[in-house]
């Protein structure tokens, strides 16, 4: 459905998108994951025809976005990072305007409007001026705008930013529902969001694709990291020495005291070694009770470090942690 080949965008010396290749099949929901400035929005802007690529091609349903822009753009609904709203219009006026520029037939206009407003739940707001809406509602109007014209492809740039948790869940479910008859690319900072919604994740860093896999495979790869957070009651230095004496510990560090008489420790073991049992016996022998033990949630930054360091042979990972 979407075919991106060798896509490159240069701004002078700066390379925003660097030879990116990927395809998205019909009905697939693909998540773009990456830190700020990774090139997510730029890639999306190129796919939708807002800006042009320096090199490479984008095809939507076989139509080149540069050679047949009218036809290709008809197939795309785009929600940019900042919803493109005219503040001086009411919701209904605005969506009507979108219907007109997306060439929705006049007879279907009313029906389309109501369907879309129903879908994103903004019916009650339709007479309100857009500038008076809250951030969450603005985001919904932006989403409604993208849905107008029955596009087969939806490009959503951080669709849940600025929403409250309830709205986030609603929007996620909505996107999931849309995935039945749409091909969707969405971008996000948040790993859990991507894994909740997407069939496939593409991780972008510095304009390059560093990983592309299903969320399950990706998290399996990521969970190999053996990092624990421990809260142990006992004297800090001695506990630390005990931890370090256990075989398989790669790295251990005392952190802040959050509870009187205890200390928090960050421990990392070598891959494929489970030290938890040994840790327990070692502590119980010395009568330093373990009050808490949990494996660390990987942040996006960690995944990046992991993904990029895997490419370089895993050399930088530990030193970067300290």
């Amino acid at each position, binding site marked *: 459905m979407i075919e991106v080949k060798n896509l490159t965008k240069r*701004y002078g010396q700066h390379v925003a998108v660097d030879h990116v290749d990927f395809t998205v099949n019909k009905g697939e929901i693909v998540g773009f994951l990456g830190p700020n400035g990774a090139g997510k929005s730029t890639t999306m*802007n190129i796919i*939708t*025809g*807002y*800006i*042009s690529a320096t090199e490479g091609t984008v095809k939507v349903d076989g139509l080149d976005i540069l050679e047949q*822009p*009218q*036809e290709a*753009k*008809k197939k*795309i609904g*785009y929600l*940019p990072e*900042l919803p*493109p*709203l*005219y*503040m*001086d*219009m009411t919701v209904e006026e605005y969506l009507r*305007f*979108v219907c*007109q*520029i*997306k*060439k929705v037939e006049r007879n279907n206009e009313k029906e389309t409007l109501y369907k879309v407003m129903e879908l994103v739940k903004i019916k009650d707001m339709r007479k309100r001026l857009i500038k008076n809406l809250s951030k969450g509602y603005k985001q919904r109007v932006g989403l409604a*705008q993208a849905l107008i014209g029955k596009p087969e492809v939806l490009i959503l740039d951080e669709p849940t930013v600025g929403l409250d948790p309830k709205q986030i869940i609603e929007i996620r479910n909505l996107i999931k529902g849309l995935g039945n008859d749409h091909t969707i690319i969405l971008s996000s900072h948040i790993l859990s969001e991507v894994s909740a919604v997407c069939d496939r994740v593409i991780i972008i860093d510095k304009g390059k694709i560093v990983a592309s896999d299903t969320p399950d495979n990706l998290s399996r790869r990521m969970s190999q990291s053996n990092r624990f957070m421990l809260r142990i009651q006992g004297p800090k230095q001695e506990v630390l020495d005990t931890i370090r004496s256990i075989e398989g510990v790669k790295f251990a560090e005392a952190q802040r005291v959050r509870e009187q008489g205890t200390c928090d420790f960050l421990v990392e073991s070598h891959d494929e070694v489970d030290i938890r049992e040994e840790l327990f016996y070692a502590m119980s022998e010395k009568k330093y009770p373990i009050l808490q033990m949990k494996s660390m949630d990987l942040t996006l930054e960690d995944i990046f470090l992991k993904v990029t360091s895997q490419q370089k042979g895993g050399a930088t990972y530990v030193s970067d942690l300290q």
Partner: protein
Amino acid sequence: MLAIFNREFRSYFTSATGYIFMSFFLIMSGIYFAIINLISGNPNYNLVLSSITMILLIGVPIITMRLLSEEKKQKTDQLVLTAPLRLSGLVLGKYFAALALFGLTLLITGIQPIIITLFGTLPVGEVLGGYMGYFLLGACFIAIGLFISSLTDNQVVAALTTFATLLLLLLMDGIKQALPIDRTSSIVFVGILVVGLSALIYFSIRNIYVSAGIAMVGFIAMGIVYGWDKTIYDGIMVRFFDWFSLLRRYESFAMGIFDLSAVVYYITFAAAFLFLTIQMIEKRRWS
């Protein structure tokens, strides 16, 4: 295009812009009408129209500054540029919205010559010609304003630049007379034009060989022309700036002369700026 036109035209009246423009224009034309026609008992309404060309200097930036700069600033251009819409439709829709506001306001001033017909004889043909010339002049100014609005995402910068450009255009006739007409300075002037043109080409396509080649061709052409007929260079500077003088052509309308070549000139002038606007938006996508 119609959708863009409707939206733009409406937004003149959902914001204060349209009202400010109309009231400013009507108050000023009313004052001139009272002084020139009513108080001194002169039925020639064209004198009022000629006097209020200066109003366009402030009026046009008011209605054009927002047109494209605000889209860029609010990022709403991401909607219109990714919609299945032609760029020409977008630019023309906006242009005609501003033109319609200007035309509507001009139509309202029509009350003033009608008042003259009630109490005296109005030179109808001349006044109609004057209106036409004034409308065309405004149409060109709006095209310039629209173009400048496409260059920046700051409304204030767009307004000030438009104001300065229009001021320069209106003052051109006065400045022109002070320009040297001797051959040497004319040749230097043409040389500067050639260099300027090739520099412009260099900055848009970044190819040193092409732009240097164009400069070479330009200089060779200058040499050939010089060998062929030296007198062509005499006063070329004045002729050059004269070509840009929008006001000079307007004056023939104001005298009641319907000059078809001037109509064509104005329409071409406006069309050229609309074309440049489209190119500017197109170019920005590539940079």
